[in-house]
């Protein structure tokens, strides 16, 4: 109040540097209340957690030592997963380049961007596992279903980010290329792509990474790869073999991440 008193106009409101934001406070409060309510509905109690812990320790105990004697089956699954990931990435990246371009609203008329955006939104609306289930039902068990599922996932991810990257480019550079009398495709090649290529490569390597992860999972629903091996090991309570598979997957993902990072560097 002393501050207010020293101000020239008596009765003027004291200035506040930080206005209270009642709406945000209400949102936080509402969220907290919902978490407590949903938890009570789902019977999440401390006792339930403690029983779960003892179960978990028994399970972990049966996983050790990991059993690597069946390494041939393991390797076969891993190689198939790797193939699924790489094939799906290559095709997905190649397809998302034109689709992303068609979806960029600063280059294309609405008649083109709306269907392209709808395709991307459709590709993004389901988790790869759901898509894989659909493809397994449609075309049968095997790697092809997994590949198709991951292609769709790649289009959704890269297509969307690539379109957004194009929408952020400098149009001055594009205008200059257009002013030379270049055709539309020449403008795209020399005026647009150089501005977004490094980001496109970034998205692509992230997607490769993510496809590698997902390729280990599509097998669970019959889409080929190490996931199938993992699932059957689970069902046979072969927990030491499960541990071996998990360790192998971790190793593959880590190596994949290193390779993706290296690719990213070499192309930029």
């Amino acid at each position, binding site marked *: 109040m002393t501050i207010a008193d020293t101000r020239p106009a008596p009765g003027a409101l004291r200035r506040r540097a930080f206005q209270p934001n009642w709406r945000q406070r209400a949102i936080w409060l509402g969220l907290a209340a919902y978490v407590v309510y949903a938890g009570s509905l789902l019977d999440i109690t401390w006792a339930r957690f403690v029983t779960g812990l003892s179960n978990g320790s028994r399970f972990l105990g049966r996983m050790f030592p990991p059993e690597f004697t069946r390494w041939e089956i393991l390797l076969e699954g891993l190689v198939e997963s790797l193939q699924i990931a790489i094939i799906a990435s290559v095709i997905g990246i190649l397809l998302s380049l034109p689709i992303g371009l068609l979806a960029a609203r600063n280059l294309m008329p609405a008649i083109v961007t709306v269907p392209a955006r709808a395709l991307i939104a459709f590709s993004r609306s389901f988790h790869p596992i759901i898509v894989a289930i659909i493809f397994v039902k449609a075309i049968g068990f095997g790697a092809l279903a997994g590949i198709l599922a991951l292609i769709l996932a790649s289009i959704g991810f890269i297509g969307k980010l690539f379109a957004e990257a194009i929408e952020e480019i400098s149009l001055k*550079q594009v205008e*200059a290329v257009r*002013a*030379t009398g270049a*055709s539309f495709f*020449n403008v795209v090649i020399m005026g647009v792509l150089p*501005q977004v290529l490094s980001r496109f490569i970034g998205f692509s390597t992230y997607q490769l990474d993510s496809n590698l992860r997902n390729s280990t999972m599509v097998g669970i629903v019959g889409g080929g790869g190490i996931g199938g091996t993992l699932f059957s090991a689970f069902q046979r309570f072969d927990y030491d073999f499960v541990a071996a598979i998990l360790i192998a997957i971790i190793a593959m993902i880590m190596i994949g991440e290193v390779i993706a990072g290296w690719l990213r560097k070499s192309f930029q």
Partner: protein
Amino acid sequence: MRATAIDDTGAVGEKAPTADGIRKGPRKGDGALVVRRLSKEYQRGVPVLKDISLDFPRRGVVAVIGPSGTGKSTLIRCINRLVEPTSGKIMLDGRDLTKLRGSALRAARREIGMIFQEYNLVERLSVIENLLCGRLGYLPVWRVWLRRFPETDIAEAFSLLDRVGLGDFATRRADALSGGQRQRVGIARAVMQNPKLLLADEPTSSLDPKTSVEIMELMRDLAAERDIPVIINIHDVALARRFATRIIGMSEGSVVYDGPPDELEETHLHQIYGAGDREGGWIG
């Protein structure tokens, strides 16, 4: 390509051979540009250009001066149709540029080089690639995609790069250059088009005074060597006086002075920039 040439033949029979894109050394400056009753409204009822009629000479440097927002940039962009005129005619070599569409428009654009205030180089391309961008109007997509530019274009690009003093910078990325160097690349890119006409939109506004003079000298000399007429938007009256063979003064979308630099008097400048006490400080 062929269809374009036929169109051209239909419109202006004698000029057909120049429109088929075959280069035989630097073309002689036959870029007679005529602007008739040109108007442009971005918003209905708010004209930026008001009924402009001008005749540009076949050679020499024409400076268009005037305060910012007076339509200089719009005028220049109407010529190569980066901006669509609302009404009026723009005739280059007897052909009305405002009527062109599609490939005929692109064929006309490649004969008009443009130099930009902020250089507008493709930052992530190398200097030599930026120069070769000047040839894009002449090349099919596959050549550009595979970077298979014709040997003659590449040789021309290197010799122009030497000419603008950047011979050692060919493979540097454009974003590694200084402002003055970038504008040199911008000029070289425009000249690579082998144009009949050069347009420059405030080419020195982003540069320091010394570099500005160098850039103006380079444009004037290159244009003279290749006999290309130049139209320069510029707000710096001193530079315009020094380099132009003719000055066009614009104010609020209309031409208020058109004549040689030495007849441009203080009263004209007041008319162009408004009667202020801006002693020598003609801020664009």
